[in-house]
């Protein structure tokens, strides 16, 4: 009886139209949908701003009905929302929205990611110049990179009220760097070459290989600036040398 009761109740909660529409049962349906939509609204404020509150509500309800959370960890709810947006026909003309959603997924992941002590300038100062090329780095667990064909960081800033809404003249690719100085998540825009450099280091490549990858994209790639970015933003937790 218990199992059959639960199956029926759960089915009616998520069904598009409940078979017995009573206001009392609707309280539970409402709690479930409102709770899930609210979780998405809190996690994807830039997407909501971009599509408008009414459209977002319809989008989020559509997602929630077919994709209830798979675990009680609501901080993970919406990890698949970018993929859903990508396949949502009414949004086909806005291919950058999925990347905007990916950036917002990464922000929550960064917020909850593991702690690790970042290396400081003195740690980097100890590296002998002749060792630089065979240097490998472990990057901070709260760091994320979103590589995009679109100006994803600029779009995010505008939709979060951190930059004035304006026509984006230079509609160019950006990689978003998400990191967490003093437990507060920050988002910076990187050029594709700088993004490639960090992606390469993140994958465990040597510094020489990472520079080479970046130079393939931009032969004016400037290591000095990226070196400061790594140190000042606390992105590196360990340094090792190849034998």
């Amino acid at each position, binding site marked *: *009886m*218990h*199992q059959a*009761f*639960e*199956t029926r*109740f*759960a089915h009616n*909660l*998520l069904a598009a139209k409940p078979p017995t529409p*009573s*206001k*009392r*049962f609707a*309280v*539970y349906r409402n*709690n*479930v949908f409102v*709770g*899930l939509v609210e*979780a998405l609204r809190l996690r994807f404020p830039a997407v909501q701003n971009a599509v408008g509150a009414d459209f977002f509500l319809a989008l989020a309800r559509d997602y929630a009905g077919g994709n*209830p*959370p*798979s*675990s*009680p*960890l*609501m*901080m993970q*709810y919406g990890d698949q929302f970018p993929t859903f947006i990508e396949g949502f026909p009414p949004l086909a003309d806005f291919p950058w929205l999925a990347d905007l959603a990916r950036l917002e997924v990464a922000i929550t992941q*960064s*917020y*909850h*990611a*593991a*702690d*690790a002590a970042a290396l400081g300038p003195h740690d980097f100062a100890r590296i002998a110049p002749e060792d630089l090329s065979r240097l490998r780095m472990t990057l901070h*667990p*709260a760091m994320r990179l979103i590589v995009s064909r679109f100006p994803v960081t600029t779009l995010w800033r505008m939709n979060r009220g951190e930059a004035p809404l304006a026509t984006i003249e230079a509609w160019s690719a950006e990689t978003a760097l998400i990191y*967490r100085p003093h*437990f*507060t998540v920050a988002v910076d825009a990187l050029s594709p070459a700088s993004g490639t450099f960090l992606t390469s280091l993140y994958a465990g490549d040597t510094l020489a290989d990472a520079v080479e990858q970046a130079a393939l994209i931009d032969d004016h790639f400037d290591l000095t600036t990226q070196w400061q970015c790594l140190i000042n933003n606390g992105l590196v937790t360990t340094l090792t040398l190849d034998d």
Partner: protein
Amino acid sequence: MIPSALSPTVGVGFKPEHYEGIAAAPGPLGFIEIHAENYMGEGGMPHAMLERLRPDYALSIHGVGLSIGGAGPLDQDHLQRLKILCDRYQPQSFSEHLAWSTHAGAFLNDLLPLPYTEETLSHIIRHIDEVQTVLNRQMLLENPSTYLRFDESTIPETEFLNLIAQRTGCGLLLDINNVFVSSTNHQLDPRAYLTAFPLSYVGEIHLGGHNEDTDDEGAVLLIDAHGSPTADSVWALYAETLAKTGPIATLIEWDNEVPAWPVLRAEVERANALLAPSLAQHAA
């Protein structure tokens, strides 16, 4: 097994936006309660805040996702996450709900109701035995707010909770707002419910706000919304309950439309004003 043993003080459901207010003026606050699932990330700000507050406050860890009232087996991964959290922060109390929230792998993100029968009783007892064994702690089980009752039910809720506590050794978390909400919704007398409630098992009391609506027949339907001050009628039931039980740890729950710290602090002071005489009387 570590007992659930919160001292009889007043606490709040901790919200990060209140961190500065609490740290600046601890005032009347005796303990904080956290929703376990919000602290299951690996690191970052939530744990940094909790580590800072933990030495100064007693802690209650309150789970909202274990689905103890579910028909299926408990989620073992989730139970292990609870164990890791309890081992790390060593709370004075761990509590969960007489409700279910997971079905066939989907987490429905709400505290859902169940019929009270010999069968559901045996499932819940098995689940609570398992929780207490894995955590090596006594847990408290909270009475729900409900909008529906089921023809299948054969055991009154108060007796159902009494049997669970007797057979598992768990304690009970008495949510007086839930008592008022459910009793009103089912046209029952909340005082009769409290008279029938096995008060000797209560290790913590919850107070919180509700909203008022009407059902299809125009009858009052209260919604357990946790987005407003505790109602006067609930404060009255709280005072009457303390007179019977003596002082008990009391939590102010305000989870939605979270107010500025001074507003919540005023609720804490209102509870303290009722708890303090009970403490004095108990000490005398």
